[in-house]
């Protein structure tokens, strides 16, 4: 269980806190997505939670133990994957996965990761012995993600894990993250990718101006804060027109009745709100 209470962080010389009064509880085995536009404070929150920035105000506890009580052994419990690949270009992909392993406490055999199997799982099986410097951006991204898994952490912090990946490879990475969740790994995922957050996360937290404006499961957020719409295709002057109409709007309901009454409606599809629409509704700002 990760518990964050009233966390506030301000950079030296900063005019306003980058993270304001953030409180979170993430149970073991949950995937929590942190969504927000650039500058919302997502990365700062992650850096404070991974002890890369000092704890200024508030508290963070991992399984009831304050982050202050941890030394560098904290990094044996957590795995951190970066948005910008930071690999050793003159080492092979496989060597990049294993080069830091000696820094971690030995794991029992049943918890040891097999680098070859991991590489196969995300489509890097044929590039194991290729120099990381010769990898494409998407391949590097996958390698950085795998490196964060190599020491079998209990908690994973992933920053834009699907950045630069094609849809098919993205599915393999999503399956890998989901598999770790099933094994009880807690995942904190920072992303702009609404589809990924919607599909993969148990809950998402919307961050805006350093604060969490809402946190819940994607489904609950969409039901509670999103507008459902109907996409109506109708005949108009001999051609086909379409309109998005909200059943919650009286004006739209009247328009719908009008179209049905005139027998002009050809098709009707219901559309669920997207997380992005919910975010815009809550913050008045787009995610990117």
């Amino acid at each position, binding site marked *: 269980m990760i518990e964050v209470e009233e966390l506030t962080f301000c950079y030296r010389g900063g005019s306003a806190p980058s993270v304001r009064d953030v409180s979170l509880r993430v149970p073991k085995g949950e995937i929590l997505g942190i969504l927000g536009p650039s500058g919302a404070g997502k990365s700062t929150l992650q850096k404070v939670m991974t002890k890369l920035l000092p704890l200024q105000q508030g508290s963070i506890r991992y399984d009831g133990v304050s982050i202050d009580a941890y030394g560098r052994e904290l990094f044996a419990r957590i795995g951190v994957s*970066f948005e910008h690949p930071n690999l050793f270009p003159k080492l092979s992909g496989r060597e990049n996965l294993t080069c830091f392993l000696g820094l971690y406490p030995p794991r029992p055999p049943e918890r040891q990761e097999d680098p070859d199997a991991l590489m196969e799982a995300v489509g890097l099986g044929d590039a194991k012995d290729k120099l990381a410097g010769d990898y494409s951006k998407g391949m590097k991204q996958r390698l950085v993600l795998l490196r964060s898994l190599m020491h079998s952490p209990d908690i994973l912090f992933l920053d834009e894990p699907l950045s630069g990946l094609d849809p098919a490879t993205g599915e393999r990475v999503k399956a890998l993250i989901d598999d770790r969740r099933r094994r009880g790994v807690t995942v904190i995922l920072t992303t702009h990718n609404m589809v990924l957050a919607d599909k993969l996360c148990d809950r998402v937290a919307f961050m805006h101006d350093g604060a969490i404006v809402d946190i819940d499961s994607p489904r609950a957020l969409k039901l509670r804060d999103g507008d459902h719409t109907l996409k109506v295709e109708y005949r108009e002057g001999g051609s086909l027109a379409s309109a998005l109409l909200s059943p919650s709007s009286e004006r739209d309901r009247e328009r719908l009745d009008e179209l049905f009454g005139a027998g002009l409606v050809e098709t009707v599809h219901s559309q669920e709100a997207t997380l992005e629409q919910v975010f815009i509704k809550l913050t008045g700002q787009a995610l990117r």
Partner: protein
Amino acid sequence: MSFLRHLRTLLWLDLRQAWHGRLVHVCLGIGLVFGLAVRFALPVQLDLGDPPQVADLTEDGRFAEYFAEHGLAEAGAVHGSMEALEVAVAADPDAIGLAMTGTPAAPGATMILQGHEPETTVVALRSGVAGIWAENGVSRPSAHRLTVLRPDQPRPPFNLSMIPLLLTIDVLVVGFFFGGVMVLQDRSLGTIGAYRVTPGGTAVYLASKIVVNVLLALAYTALLLVIAPPHAVPVLSLIAVVCLSSALLTTVGIGVAVFFRTLSSFFYPASLISLVLSAAMPAYFFPAFNTPWIRALPTYQAMFTLRELLLPSGRPSTLGEFCLAIGAGLVVALILTTLAVDRRLLREA
């Protein structure tokens, strides 16, 4: 135990990085070039230039034999008249001429200079003239005296006397520059970010870089001394001096580099610091540079301690003093650099 396990892991990685980054090649390349230079290119004795052009214009011709004894006649530097001497001097822009004139009762000489020579040359030549007259039976009070403190000690050949200097240059380059370069490489690749989120800490990071550079310095030293063996190689003392000097300068190099983001921004301050550290080098040739602040430089201390080890002059050993001074400097540098690495490198700004 975990420190040693961490160190082994990082050391292997840093050695590979040093190999891929060509640091090993550069280090051994410099060692090879310097070794070959000492062995084959540098002279055993310094040739101070062509002999002067001379003429014996004294009434009794008393210097003919003297000039022959000093090989001047054989070198074709003896002329029969002032005119011939002037022609010979004019033909070579670096030549100087000396015509001995007069009699034992009224000794004299004419010096022919190009005009660009420093005043010291004129003064030296005047003293030389007096010396030549004195050697040839004209007794005059002479101010020249030569005292040798340890006449039995062999004078080291010029080429071998360069080894301590070349070893010090290596310790400076490999230690200070390579230490900084390794840190800035980690920064530019972003791999320091990956290291930050591992259990390996500041001490392991620093220790690994120091060990790699000390190993490189030892490899360079071994290569140089195998190619150009000096008078003595007291292995343990030599290892102690090279290890301590390299460790100190590597620590300083890392401590400075963490304040910069790129290699280009590190270049200018690093050059300035190297220049200060190199200020000890002229003192090797000109004792006038032996000022208190230069004597305090680690490069000065390393250079003269190495000279005493490899080319013993018979003076009492200063190895103990060196180890104490450099050891103390290393402890201070380690404390400051550990703080700097921890704050500036292993944490986010």
